[in-house]
């Protein structure tokens, strides 16, 4: 464990609300508005933390535990997340499943807290969230498996022993330019699938509209309607961390900079993340929301892309 890998997760904790800011600035630019400042989410969080919370009498301890568990799961996940070539503080074989299920835990507690309020609308949002994420998860895991397969000839010396080959840090350190040259089409498909998962999991257009105010069409927003004050701050911050988590998985794949210097690699991934946020803003400005019936189809397509990439690499 070296210094950069210890510091990077804390940097992620500080920088993650910036991604949301970049998305919103891009959308404002496309709409021709002045838009909110780049650091708006930081201001919002500071404001919410100073407020008190109101709890409905029908809710139980689950409702209060929800935001705390979400935030804790997100922060834990940051510690197994590599920044491209820069490895995470903790890595072991199969930690990609830990990452996927920490995000699953986040979602589970969001859903439980939403159901705990007893509101019909929140139940509807919860049902959709669970349905869509059940389809997004195979795309993510199969995609990562394909990435592991693409890179497993190119693992960098520090993690070169087979032990690292199935950890996220091992996978991402091996996805160098060489891996792209030898299995470019497959990696491109994995990147596409991960980007779709990134949009779906972060409740972005075309899956969900973060700005919508119609309960019938909301998915993520409707589940957090009853939270306020510090709880809402934790949820918003947790959501931005989740964006960071899935964003780094995508950006680490599409930015094949593996210099061996952790700081250089990490800044390349950060540039990739900013680009990804920009791209998300462009997608949100230029696309309409999909009809709910069409959403599973897009997610299954993403799963198909991942599967195709894995099949291509297995039979290389």
């Amino acid at each position, binding site marked *: 464990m070296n210094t950069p890998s210890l510091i990077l997760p804390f940097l992620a904790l500080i920088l993650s609300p910036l991604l949301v800011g970049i998305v919103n600035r891009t959308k404002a630019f496309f709409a021709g508005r002045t838009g909110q400042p780049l650091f708006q989410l930081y201001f919002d969080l500071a404001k919410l933390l100073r407020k008190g919370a109101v709890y409905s009498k029908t809710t139980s301890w689950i409702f209060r535990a929800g935001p705390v568990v979400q935030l804790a799961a997100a922060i834990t996940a940051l510690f197994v997340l590599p920044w491209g070539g820069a490895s995470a503080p903790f890595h072991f074989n199969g930690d990609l499943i830990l990452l996927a299920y920490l995000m699953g835990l986040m979602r589970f507690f969001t859903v439980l807290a939403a159901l705990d309020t007893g509101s019909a609308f929140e139940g509807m949002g919860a049902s959709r969230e669970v349905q869509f994420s059940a389809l997004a998860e195979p795309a993510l895991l199969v995609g990562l498996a394909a990435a592991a397969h693409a890179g497993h000839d190119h693992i960098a010396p520090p993690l070169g022993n087979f032990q690292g080959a199935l950890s996220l840090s091992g996978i991402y350190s091996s996805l160098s330019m060489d891996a792209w040259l030898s299995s470019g089409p*497959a990696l491109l498909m994995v990147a596409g699938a991960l980007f779709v998962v990134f949009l779906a999991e972060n409740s972005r257009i075309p899956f969900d509209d973060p700005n919508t105010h119609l309960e019938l069409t909301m998915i993520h927003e409707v589940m957090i309607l009853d939270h306020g004050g510090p709880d809402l701050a934790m949820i918003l911050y947790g959501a931005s961390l989740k964006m960071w988590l899935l964003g780094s998985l995508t950006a680490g794949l599409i930015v094949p900079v593996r210099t061996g210097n952790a700081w250089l690699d990490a800044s390349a991934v950060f540039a990739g993340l900013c680009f990804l946020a920009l791209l998300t803003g462009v997608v949100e400005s230029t696309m309409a929301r999909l009809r709910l019936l069409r959403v599973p189809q897009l997610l299954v397509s993403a*799963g*198909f892309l991942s599967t195709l990439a894995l*099949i291509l690499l297995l*039979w*290389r």
Partner: protein
Amino acid sequence: MRLLVDALIVLLILTNLRLVASSHLAACIYVVALQGLVLGLLPLLVGTDPLTLRACVLSGLTMVLKGIIFPWLLLRALRAVQVRKEMEPLVGYTTSLLVGAVLLALAMWFGRRLPLPVSEASPLMVPLALFTIMIGLFAIVSRRKALTQVLGYLVMENGIYAFGLTFAREEPLLVELGTLLDIFMAVFVMGITIFHISREFDHIDTDRLSLLKD
């Protein structure tokens, strides 16, 4: 070169996928046109190193016929019958994608086990051909509109063509040209037939045609 061929093959696999996942007939026709164009490029890339006149003629003819003339004929038929969408396919679009994934795995597995007399340009070539044939058949059996079934037929023929490319060096040019001419006639006739079916019965749903009695 190998990477380029692989990329094109992946593109072909994705066009197959797009075909079974789309409900807009016009979009399906464009997808098949793209598939024809990419298939036309392949003889130039998989053949022996110096470009032969044979490969160029084959490639040019394929691109013109499959990429331009067939889509044009079908788009004309589409305009004439005034049908925009495949409304109720026998197998839904999300299910079709899953079926596509299974078919792909099957094609890969089968392609590996098929002993071939010649070495292929890319190990993905035979699986691609088998997958394209299967998707074509699947489109024929799972869709109601006559136009989609014609597209399925075309895709199936594309698969056979891709299979033939594996033997591109052994196969005589005349056979390929003959096949292309046959397909041309078939699409031409089917375009006219679709138009007549639609004028006679106000729809082109083939499963309703099976109920007809004389």
